[in-house]
């Protein structure tokens, strides 16, 4: 659970890859989730270019596949804290 101020401070960084496209280079299906998350869900490792890689949750029907072209979309991430600040960030779906 994060404070409202922390959620606010993270905004610009959280939205950095919104609308970006990349390629799935690895994936894992989390069954046993940490606090604040409910499994199972897929997490993908995406390469934006040769230097930039990032991790994010999968937000599409069907499974992610290695080599699949994907796009960053805005989604709610994590749970609402006591301050009721809803945190948004980028998750990944198949680029069409």
């Amino acid at each position, binding site marked *: 659970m994060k404070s409202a101020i922390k959620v606010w401070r*993270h905004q610009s960084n*959280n939205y950095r890859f919104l609308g970006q496209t990349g390629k799935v*280079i*690895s*994936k*894992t*299906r*989390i*069954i*046993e*989730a*940490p*606090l*604040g*998350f409910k499994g199972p*869900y897929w*997490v993908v*490792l995406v390469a934006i270019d040769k230097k930039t*890689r*990032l*991790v*994010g*949750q999968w937000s599409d029907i069907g499974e992610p596949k*290695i080599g699949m072209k994907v796009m960053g979309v805005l989604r709610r*991430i*994590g749970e609402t804290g006591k301050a009721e600040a809803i945190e948004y*960030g980028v998750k990944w779906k198949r680029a069409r």
Partner: protein
Amino acid sequence: MFIAGAYQTKFGELWDKDLNDLIVEAGEAAIKDSGIKRQDIDLVLVANMLAGNLEGQNHLGALAVELLGLNGVSASRVEAACASGGVAVNQAVNALKAKTAKNVLVIGAEKMTDKSSAEVSSGLMGAASEAERQAGLTFVGLYGLMARVYFDRFKMTKNDLAYVAVKNHKHASLNPKAQYPFAVDMETVLKSSCVASPLHLFDCSPITDGAAAVVVTDKARSKRDVAVAASGMATDSLSLTQRESLVELKATKLAMKQACRQSGLKPGDIDLAEVHDCFSIAEIMAVEDLGFCQKGEGFKKIKAGDFDHDGRLPVNLSGGLKACGHPVGATGVKQIVELAIQLRGEAGQRQVKKVNTGLAHNVGGSGATAVVHILRKL
């Protein structure tokens, strides 16, 4: 530098013991084993990662000196995630080299089983990056991402991975202090439930309570003492996404390079090793990155028995993190204890014949910190 005293508590779900009990048991026993007088201990280092999170207890250096009746002595906590133990031993060696201490007591201790798996999992993610936490990753997930890339690159299968757990459980069956002192078969490993694909329960080290302690000293006093031939430590990016390669831990390679330079030894000179098998894929990468075999060959050599008790280079005779258990702050110290016991010839039924040189490899996070120690028989 020399390891004079060495002791490990039983690892496991120790419901009747709290963090203080573990610190006292390990600390007292290591001092006694060293033959060094209590009043000659001049530095105490406590390796621990999660006591602040899980126990609400910080300030562990002061806690340990109070519990051991060493008030007045210099003391502090050392934290480097799962490499806390290895880093604490490295810091002890550095203090001796700098001549700021003569006899250092290093205690690694962790109390983990009072909390739920989700709470422990979230606490451990403190060793990862903010982006990795935001993605809902766990450490199993982070190593799962590495395993997936390794699978595709080197045509490894889940069956190949399973040999790591089978080997380490077989070793643990000879270690009464292991959390799981019993052998398991391939079927048990392969049928265990998935935690984070492609890794299953038996690919993962468990949640464990336990402690281990060593006394590191500047002079050898007895034939039982073991020389510290090298103490190398290196780092890489905290974030998995910023690594050069996803199928190796560069920090391990760098720490090994330092250790070889300091000792004048090569990977081929090592007689036995305790490596950081927090997940089965981690042991496979470790034996490759330490130079015990070529990249992409690790799983084949494990399958072929190269690293078995009777193989060319026994790896994880204690049972490793997988079967001996992984009380995170204690693990790196336990590896040193295991090597010291083997090099002294006091390992009982798991004793290896003709051992002169042992290597300990301890990793923090998904590979951000790595420590390599080489110990030698006097």
